[in-house]
């Protein structure tokens, strides 16, 4: 599922490369096939409310997958996203409540300490700081991203537990929960945020200097450096971007669940990384797109939803998604070795 050319350029007309074409559209084709299969097996699947439900379910992990696309395009990885979501969500909720005194107050009577906008900004600030710290460790201390963010996974989770004392902060007033549960028209708010973020990220990646440099660093970091690209800054920035996405997603998640918890986002990195990789972004860096990531996120959402409708247990879903992830990477390896030949 590795598109050979997803840097927004035309393919040269050197005859039909059937493998290349198939590889490029594998994820969208698979997605359409999956939708057709579930539609045949389960008529309810195509009901607009169910489709919106699928979108709502993928919106949180999809939002983070958009940030993760930047990271993986530079041949990096961020394993800490789930933990950072927990920490950022708690801090946002804490700010909204103005402290831990009324952490369990329920419903519309729940006391409010600060306006929602402060909560959003606080959650995003935590995400950005978390991402920036990891970005610094990667670019300045030269510790590999895998190790830094594996450490981050533990650090942020520990910080979240410490901060909250283990318990949740829950029961928000409607102006807070609207961001997770509300709709504009019939479209859930998190879904709108997801597509908005995708559109902006797409423009940044394909049409700005920074986006081009993200691809360049992933393609050949040393060559980018020789050509005057500030590779260190680009690498730092992609971790800030995924941190921003984690902060925003943390706020939306706590609003949807009406609760911020230290155990939120456990294992979230699986769905996030799977969406990016299944969507055709290469773990080797330099190849991939936001469009692919959106398709990858939808694919996982459709798969989960369809399997639920067919009464397949969530344990089996875990297995299926893990296997598809491995298959996508195997495919990527094969495509990479083929293009090197």
């Amino acid at each position, binding site marked *: 599922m590795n598109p*050979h*050319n997803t*840097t*927004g*350029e*035309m393919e*040269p007309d*050197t005859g039909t490369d059937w493998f290349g074409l198939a590889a490029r559209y594998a994820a969208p084709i698979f997605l359409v096939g999956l939708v057709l299969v579930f539609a045949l097996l389960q008529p309810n699947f195509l009901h607009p409310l169910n489709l919106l439900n699928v979108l709502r379910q993928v919106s949180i992990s999809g939002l983070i997958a958009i940030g993760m696309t930047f990271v993986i395009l530079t041949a990096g990885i961020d394993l800490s996203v789930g933990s950072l979501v927990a920490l950022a969500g708690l801090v946002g909720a804490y700010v909204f409540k103005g402290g831990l005194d009324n952490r369990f107050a329920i419903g519309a009577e729940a006391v409010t300490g600060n306006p929602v906008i402060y909560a959003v900004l606080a959650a995003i600030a935590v995400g950005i700081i978390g991402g920036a710290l990891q970005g610094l460790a990667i670019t300045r201390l030269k510790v590999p991203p895998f190790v830094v963010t594996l450490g981050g996974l533990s650090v942020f989770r520990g910080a979240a537990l410490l901060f909250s004392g283990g318990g949740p902060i829950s029961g928000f007033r409607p102006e807070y929960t609207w961001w997770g549960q509300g709709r504009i028209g019939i479209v859930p708010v998190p879904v709108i945020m997801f597509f908005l973020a995708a559109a902006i990220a797409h*423009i940044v990646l394909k*049409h*700005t*200097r920074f*986006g*081009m440099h993200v*691809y*360049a660093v*992933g*393609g*050949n970091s*040393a*060559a*980018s*450096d*020789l*050509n*005057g*690209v500030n590779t260190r800054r680009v690498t730092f920035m992609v971790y800030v971007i995924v941190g921003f996405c984690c902060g925003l997603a943390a706020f939306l998640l706590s609003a949807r669940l009406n609760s911020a918890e230290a155990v939120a986002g456990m294992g979230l990195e699986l769905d996030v990384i799977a969406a990016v990789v299944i969507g055709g972004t290469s773990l080797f860096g*330099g*190849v991939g797109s936001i469009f692919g990531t959106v398709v990858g996120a939808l694919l996982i959402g459709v798969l989960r939803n369809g399997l639920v409708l067919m009464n397949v247990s969530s344990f089996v879903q875990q297995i299926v998604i893990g296997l598809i992830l491995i298959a996508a990477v195997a495919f990527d390896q094969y495509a990479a070795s083929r*293009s090197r030949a």
Partner: protein
Amino acid sequence: MMNILELNGITKNFGGIHALSGVDLNLEAGQVLGLMGDNGAGKSTLIKIIAGSFPPTSGTISLSGKPVNFARPREARDAGIEVVHQDLALCDNLTASMNVFLGREIVRKIGPFRFLNRTAMNEQAAELFADLKSETRPKDLVRQMSGGQRQAVAIARTRLSQPNIVIMDEPTAAISVRQVAEVLDLIRRLQRAGLAVILISHRMPDVFSVCDRVVVLRRGTKVADKPVTETSPEEVTGLITGAIETA
């Protein structure tokens, strides 16, 4: 005439490896210098120091009499030094045109934002390739290109600015005879335009046909520096291998 480039006592150690020891080198505008030496002699290290890839362990660099200290390649480029690196320094995943413009993209302002102007970059890249008599197409991915086309991309980069010095590290190592002729022709044109050129090459005929001077490095030390008219391929070969001590 003022030296456009002056190196004094350039030494470079990589840990215990003495890549360069006390190299002096002068270059005048309009001069083509052939830099020769066996593999590992220190040629690429010397030009990387000039190009700002890394600083020398000791020694000084002056441009037109002014001492410079490049912290990064961009600073050397801004000072008028363009380099075609030995490995070409290309991003395989990007198009020919994006590689040419990497680090100095053409952008278009829309409100407070600046967006890539791909059309302008593709058009300008097409002109550069035509000028180099290369059939490289701007929108082709570098991954899918032949050695000659890749070479053209790396050389086209040096034509984006108005440099004073162009350095080519083995630009003819992996290309066809016809393409070699094009590269040598380009070097002559650069020279006529008053630029200084450093050509690293193993090919005696190339060096003797376009260069005014030849410098030979052996194990990090300069062992010869003379006009091509006062030496011969045989003598240079002897200097490279060590059969002739110095000249």
